[in-house]
């Protein structure tokens, strides 16, 4: 049984910004439902003769857990288990072991975990579940995939956390994720910021690195974006964070599962249509990658299209600058 102290210290309680988003999103959803009852009834199921979503097979073998495989037992913040993210689960431990936990450097392990989740797990709309289930299935929403990445890092003794924000997406993403379903489109367009997005952050060599493990390379090619690497942010790339909504969390908060469950209950057909659209885009992305001459060649082109590299400026305090007030 989770104690009140744990709920507070582990960050299970939603932050104020999160609550505000949920309230606004809930109100917006209610309005869309009330004003579109007939359409919703029609859209909540996929017609019998309509295209159905078939989840592709898992892209990897789940290794067998063996005695002696280690996991970090620290209870320190960002290392301990949190909601849906148990780094001691045998499946997590076995995969982390295979990726080099406690055998390679933190940096190397983080890279391995990043590539594993980003390249071998698939993006798919579905309800929130425990990390074990996600890894056994090999797919999930960005929240599932971030959780998998965070669990693997924490298992290897590397601090990891969530970065969650409300976002506006670029057109090519909108066309794939929002546009295919009239219900989702109405909801998104009515408020524009109900869609929460997340990324992982991992502490390596004293620096928090962002890990956007959600989109696979094929998906990124289809949306015309670069193939992101560890340390590269989705914000400013294909998302823009709505000001004032950026939250860093140790855990997914209470309420997230319920809100996704609700959405899947109200509009399962809509969720399926989004998955169908994403699958079709990934197929298109595969062709784009082949035409470009492979992943690296595509990435080079996409980066060139995106513009030149920008330096990163860290805002460190300078002794000579003092503030009165």
């Amino acid at each position: 049984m989770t104690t009140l102290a744990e709920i507070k210290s582990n960050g299970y309680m939603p932050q104020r910004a999160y609550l505000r988003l949920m309230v606004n999103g809930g109100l917006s959803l209610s309005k869309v439902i009330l004003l579109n009852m007939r359409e919703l009834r029609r859209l909540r199921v996929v017609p019998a003769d309509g295209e159905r979503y078939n989840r592709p097979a898992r892209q990897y073998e789940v290794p067998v857990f063996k005695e002696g495989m280690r996991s970090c037992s620290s209870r320190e913040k960002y290392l301990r288990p949190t909601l849906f993210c148990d780094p001691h689960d045998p499946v997590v431990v076995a995969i982390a072991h295979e990726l080099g936990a406690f055998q390679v450097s933190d940096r190397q392990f983080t890279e391995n975990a990043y590539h594993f989740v980003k390249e071998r797990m698939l993006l798919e709309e579905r309800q929130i579940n425990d990390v074990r289930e996600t890894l056994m299935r090999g797919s999930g929403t960005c929240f599932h995939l971030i959780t998998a990445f965070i669990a693997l890092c924490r298992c290897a003794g590397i601090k990891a956390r969530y970065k969650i924000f409300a976002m506006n997406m670029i057109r090519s993403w909108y066309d794939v994720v929002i546009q295919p379903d009239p219900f989702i489109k109405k909801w998104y367009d009515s408020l524009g910021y109900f869609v929460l997005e997340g990324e992982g952050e991992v502490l390596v060599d004293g620096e928090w690195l962002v890990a956007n493990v959600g989109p696979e390379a094929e998906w990124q090619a289809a949306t015309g974006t670069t193939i992101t690497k560890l340390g590269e942010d989705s914000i400013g790339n294909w998302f823009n964070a709505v000001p004032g909504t950026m939250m860093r969390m140790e855990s997914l908060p209470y309420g997230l599962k319920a809100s996704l469950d609700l959405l899947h209950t109200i509009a399962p057909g809509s969720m399926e249509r989004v998955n169908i659209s994403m699958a079709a885009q990934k197929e298109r992305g595969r062709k784009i990658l082949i035409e470009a001459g492979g992943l690296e060649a595509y990435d080079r082109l996409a980066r060139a299209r995106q513009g030149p590299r920008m330096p990163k400026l860290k805002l460190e305090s300078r002794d000579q600058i003092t503030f009165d007030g």
Partner: protein
Amino acid sequence: MGYAEYISEFETLVSRYVPERSSWGPPEQALYGPTDPYRVPTEEANDLCFKAVKFQFDRHYHHNRMYHDFCQEAGVGPEDIKAYEDLSKIPLIPNEFFKDCPTGKDFALWLGNLYTGELPQIRIKGTNPSADQVVSAFNDAGLFVLFSSGTGGRHTFTPRDKRSFDMNEYAMAKGVAAMFCPTWNPRMNGYLLLPNPFKTNLFAGKLATIFYDIMNEVESAVDRKIDTELIRLTMGDGKGVKGRMIKYISKKRSRKTIDDIISWIEQNDKEGKGMAFVGAPFLLFSTIKKLKEQGRSFDLGDRGAVLTGGGWKLHEDQRMPESEFRKDVESVLGIKPKNVIDLYGMVEGNVWLTQCPEGHYLHIPNCYVYPMVLDDSYRPLGYGKLGRFAFLDGTMYSYPGFIITNDRVRLLERCPVCGRPGPVLEPGVTRVPGKESRGCAEEVRKIISVDMKR
């Protein structure tokens, strides 16, 4: 008067911008050394340029953490820059970077971390200081934080130390003096078609500081304090009583500016004085238009000179053909086209390209500037190709002046008209598609014309 005597008179007037010769390093040798920056033999210019740029690259690499990390990411270090040909390997910073700054206290830290070397003591008041408060605090401490191009809603900010600012001023004035020889003389009176440099930190105004040293009496078209707040209010998003009041006052003043310029010409013409117009072509165009409407003209001849800069936009969708402008200047003011010269520069660098009077090609001071034209993948193109202008500035001490611009240009190895040895840009610099119009003149045009047209 020969060139040596002519330029010696200029050097005397600008001596406060030149450090003691004994303290000169490669950047100073490259900037202050040549008597005519546009007539240095190519081999000598390349040697000066290599030493100056290499010096600055080493300095920024070792003393600017942001740039050091940026270079490491690109896999380029000082050991890779061994010869003039290696300069193109130096990592370039897109000019957009200088627009991407935070607000409040973070803005001060952004400037402080962008700065290369030791900062002076800077004290900033307020819990959430405005951009203008931060800029003032830096400048009160002896720096020159200048801003520009709020035309897209985002200002470009750059921090210069005094040495870099002086080099900027000298570089611009020396190039202009060299090209205007023998027309310029210190007895000329000047009219700045720009904001008063002593009342603003807007680059489009501040850059004209040196004209107060090299001309007799100087007037400015916009003689009021201009900060980012005023620009914001004037340019249109200033709502409420304050915004409306500022727009009303601005409108009244702007209408008067053209009349003031005409009175100034009349007065100086009557007294037989030399006249130099410096700044936004839009304002002189409006003056000429009014004189034409009144059926009046002047014959200033060699007593007159026009130095324009910052772009050739008349209205939101209308550009002014430079050759037409020169014809109008000649027909209404009597100033010959050879004495109507355009200047190309920007807040991000001390790089000033000046048109030659013979062909109006933009000459690059290649003793301290390494120019490049980049393709769509940001790789250097050769001479003769159209692409994005980029440069390595060998005189910028305070931040890495290795910049990719959003200007579309064609770089030529030699001027096809005059005999000067260095590379040139074809006249008619335009913006890369998708990037907002910018430039000093565009800012002045916006500040003044938005109200004049209402």
